[in-house]
């Protein structure tokens, strides 16, 4: 059943079930993110890096991809996006608590360093923007084999100052590769504001410099992001090359559990951000469409909490990695 007539054109290709599912994914990402921060404050999760405020953009992009077919080369704020691709709360809790079943790395890496071959999520490290070039290589392989797959790679606006980002966009444009460069611009690279990162108003202003279509969208507007991502994905799948897609997001939490953004952002700034929380915006939007009824949002929330409780119980019960495994997987074994 298609959405009601009050829905914008950007939602036209989405069913009511998909819209509800998108909302649920956003809520699941948010509540899991909040849970991890609590576990960090309790001293149980040694490190946490939050994606709160980015959920709408990540869901918007994620739903433009074919799960199990397309690829993602993420960055550390993509908790919600990797779950759209198929990862589970359990996976992230295993990583956050340093448990052996962590599918990203077997608890070798800090949490937030996503990777899962089963879900076409490329393994990622800590250096910023190195992953951009890997996505270009993945897209090279798709094109070389004549596959109709696309790859999305993401980074913050700070990462666009890195040489690897520039080299990756330039290369992808030269070779017209099926890659979407998503920039989740939340205005801050740890403490450094965008104005100290670049002299242009929008990251997407650089698109023409690479000979590449680009767009800036409101990252708090899930459907706007989705429409822009669909356009980029369709273009890539048609063999018409890459797109630079900038989603203007908000960073509701500090950079990481080792940072306190109250030291460099004003109370007004922080308060104003909260008033535009993308989750609330999407809830109101879906209620306006008649996709969510009164009380539905609470039910979604309770359901997600149950999933997280069960996942945490599983992670709590899981064993830490065996020290004997620390020397494994440096080279292929056997």
């Amino acid at each position: 059943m298609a959405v009601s007539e009050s829905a914008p054109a950007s939602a036209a290709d989405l069913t009511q079930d998909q819209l509800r599912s998108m909302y649920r994914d956003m809520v699941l990402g948010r509540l899991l993110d909040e849970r991890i921060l609590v576990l960090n404050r309790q001293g149980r999760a040694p490190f946490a890096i939050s994606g709160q405020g980015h959920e709408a953009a990540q869901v918007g992009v994620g739903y433009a991809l074919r799960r199990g077919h397309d690829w993602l080369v993420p960055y550390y704020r993509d908790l919600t996006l990797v779950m759209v691709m198929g990862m589970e709360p359990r996976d992230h809790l295993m990583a956050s608590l340093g448990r052996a079943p962590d599918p990203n790395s077997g608890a070798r890496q800090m949490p937030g360093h996503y990777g899962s071959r089963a879900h076409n999520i490329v393994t990622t490290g800590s250096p910023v923007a190195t992953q951009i070039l890997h996505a270009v290589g993945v897209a090279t392989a798709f094109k070389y084999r004549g596959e109709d797959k696309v790859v999305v790679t993401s980074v913050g606006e700070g990462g666009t100052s890195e040489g690897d980002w520039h080299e990756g966009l330039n290369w992808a444009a030269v070779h017209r590769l099926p890659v979407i460069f998503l920039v989740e611009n939340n205005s801050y690279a740890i403490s450094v504001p965008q104005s100290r990162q670049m002299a242009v108003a929008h990251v997407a202003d650089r698109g023409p410099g690479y000979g590449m279509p680009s767009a800036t969208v409101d990252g708090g507007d899930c459907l706007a992001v989705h429409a822009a991502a669909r356009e980029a994905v369709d273009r890539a799948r048609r063999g018409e090359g890459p797109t630079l897609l900038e989603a203007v997001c908000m960073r509701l939490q500090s950079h990481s559990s080792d940072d306190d953004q109250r030291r460099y952002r004003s109370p007004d700034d922080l308060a104003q951000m909260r008033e535009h929380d993308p989750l609330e915006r999407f809830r109101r939007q879906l209620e306006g469409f008649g996709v969510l009824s009164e009380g539905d949002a609470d039910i979604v929330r309770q359901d997600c909490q149950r999933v997280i409780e069960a996942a945490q119980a599983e992670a709590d019960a899981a064993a830490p990695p065996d020290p004997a495994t620390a020397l494994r997987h440096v080279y292929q074994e056997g």
Partner: protein
Amino acid sequence: MAQITYVEAIRGALEDEMRRDDRVLVMGEDVGAKGGVFGATAGLFQEFGEERVIDTPLAEAAIVGVSIGCALAGLRPVAEIQFLDFIPPAMDQIINEAAKIRYRSNGDWSCPMVIRAPCGGGVHVHGALYHSQSLEALFAHVPGLKVVIPSTPADAKGLLLSAIRDPDPVCFFEHKALYRSLREEVPEGEHLVPIGKSRVAREGTDLSCITYGATVHEALTAAERMDRDGIEVEVLDLRTVRPLDREAIIATARKTGKVLVCHEANLAVGVGAEVAAIIAEECFQQLDAPVMRLGGPEIPAIPFAEPLAEVYCLGPDKIEARLRQLAAY
């Protein structure tokens, strides 16, 4: 078997492997229509096309980073860095990414790729500071990488085939002075030389000279001169500096009891230090002299003018002098 040069052996190995396995592709600066600045990819562009022999933008980090992505997606890329001296921009991709992909994903992902780069200089190479460096120690320090430095045309082919088929990232450094100075019979078709296995380039009983790359030939010349005086020098060509062939290093040290380790790269904290440490740890009782080392002096690289270059370079004379010193100990 045909008599071919070192660079022809490299080119032939790439061609053979690209014909055998369509996952193999080549990328780098000028590797396409020109066939590489040293001709190592000559003719490949014409045979395999621009999708498999990719002329890249002038961006070393991208050449390696994009190759990593290709490897992650199931291809077998061979990246060419035009000169090893220009690899530093790609170090992040090599050390933090390629080397760690298997480990950091707990074996979920792997990165089978080769990074080829011409290295080394010499009195007649005139490469000066930025076209002559031997930087292998930087890579040999990193778990997750393999580092191969062949000294002969046959090894260049056999080791390159092994490197391309290797499931992990391999740094493959080719001494540019060898490209056209050597010609030897190289087996046609399937000729695999295993990574991590050294080669006794010359048998001897009195002294051991452990080395690799172009220095092998200088050591052999020095050994021949010693032979005239009845001193038998065994020359061990390491072929691979990570992983080192510990067994062979220990065997030759125990056999002769006197070892000189030499390489063109800077001496301090070089591969020779690791070799010497292995011998000190494993062969102390069998040694008749302290392990000696010979390598590049404490200057950044090989200078341009010949009188200056000579100060840096080893050559048979310097190696012979050290061997005689060792023999007299």
